[in-house]
């Protein structure tokens, strides 16, 4: 199973997004590098709006992810409630 990944700028907002990702995807690996955080997982990874909102304590639009996103790998699916990454194998 191939790995999907997402990398975010290492800042205060990303900290909450990464916490939300970890909660919703218990098997993810979080890698800290200078100025960036890379999160990877086998096959699939989801970023859920509700979980991020809970961590941030405010309304959060899934498209706001672009403000802190560096890069990603995998097929993207996005709607109002979540962004997910997956590979078809």
């Amino acid at each position, binding site marked *: 199973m191939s790995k999907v*990944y997402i990398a975010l700028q290492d800042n205060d907002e990303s900290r909450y997004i990464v916490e939300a990702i970890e909660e919703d995807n218990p098997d993810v690996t979080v890698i800290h590098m200078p100025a960036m955080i890379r999160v990877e997982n086998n096959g699939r990874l989801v970023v859920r709006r509700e979980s991020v909102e809970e961590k941030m304590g405010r309304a959060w639009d899934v*498209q706001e992810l*672009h*403000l802190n996103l560096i890069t990603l790998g995998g097929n993207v699916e996005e709607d109002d409630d979540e962004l997910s990454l997956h590979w*078809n*194998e």
Partner: protein
Amino acid sequence: MAAKKLNIKDKYRLLTRDLDWEYSYQDRQAAFPYEEFEGIKITDWSKWEDPFRLTMDAYWKYQAEKEKKLYAIFDAFAQNNGHLNVSDPRYVNAIKLFLSAVTPLEYQAYQGFAHTGRQFGGVGARIACQMQSIDELRHVQTQIHAMSHFNKFFDGFQDFSHMHDRVWYLSVPKSFFNDARAAGPFEFMIAIGFSFEYVLTNLLFVPFMSGAAHNGDMATVTFGFSAQSDEARHMTLGLEIIKFLLEQHEDNVPIVQKWIDKWFWRGARLLSVVSMMMDYMLPNKVMSWKEAWEVYFEEAGGALFKDLARYGIRMPKYADVIEKEKEHLSHQTWWTFYTHGQATGFHTWIPSDEELDWLSEKYPETFDKYYRPRWELAKEMEAKGERFYTKALPQLCTICQVPMLFTDMDNPTQTVYRSSQYEGERYHFCSDGCKDIFDDEPEKYVQSWLPVHQIFQGNCGGPDLTGVLGEFYKMNLGADNLDMKGSPDEQRWNQWKGKA
């Protein structure tokens, strides 16, 4: 009563698909003249989906936010005299290379997507290309702005756009984009949208930019990551367009495979300069080129090709050669720049003893065996006051325009030379990959503008090298070039740091 807020899918449909129109009194084929000439068959453009469903209103909103954050950091960097906080003045030479070699590619990408987007009959793809075109223009501007601060304090930044069109090693990136932009719209998308964006930009904008952060250059890391967040959308566009082409018609599969083979090979050659930026030009290192290649090409690219296998797409041709090259690329490339250091727009140097040890550790199979002895010899010569600069002009590959510096990867003491005859002339290549590209379209590549040939023909100032470098390239000789040791850059740095 307040209007109901549209969900993202409905909003996207209303703000994109409804912008298209039927051609009632004009010929649709005449409106999109390039759509068919590559042999690609499109039966239904409405099947093309943008997974991010980004519409113009959201685009402006989030791009404006990103710009605000980015310029706040540029201001802080300038106000804090950020150039004094970089790890070592050697680092700045990677930024000189970035400004002259990479930033003009962003401008080419802007022009390429503006043109290509216009050529697609499908409105979803046209809009995604339009946004990408605007993104690329933003990248040019933010990169020039971020790096302009260094121009006040270091040599070599003064004429980057003039140099991009002329300097021998800058013909490598320039020819890459010229080749893509001289192709049809679908090949351009596979070249830039898919091969370059999906796999190759990650290697430039992720580990190298993380390295910029590690070397105290907050302006560069921030434009790099801000640009790459756009690249995440671009990669998605590239992946969507390839899947779309493969799903539209089975006849598209061999055409797309041929483009993948070509553009991954050209991309791997283009990245040789990034390999040395990672391994040799970052004083504080984050990961080796080999490690970055394994993460972003082998692992990420491997996942991608497994995903595409269901369409009958296989790994790019010569992926096996590319895999071996990760052990050698940075060493062979930096050595070439070091030995041509009198003809480059930046400084070169011998790695420190700690850096040589780091390279031995990261490249246990190859570094001590093939490359350390060269640096030990260079150190001896430098200690005797005989810093080596080659007097010869390199032979260039007709396709990638890289000097013939690459060896057989199974026998790294043997330089690879390949050649083909076309209409009575012989053309030279650095590899089987480049030779294949020529043999497929010789009439295109016989037109290549090769800097060394042009110098010998007297088209680049002259007659001696000083004329070429000073008059034609507009380098400030003795300031922009030669070794880092003893350079004005080093002298100024030592004064700022109280070491002079």
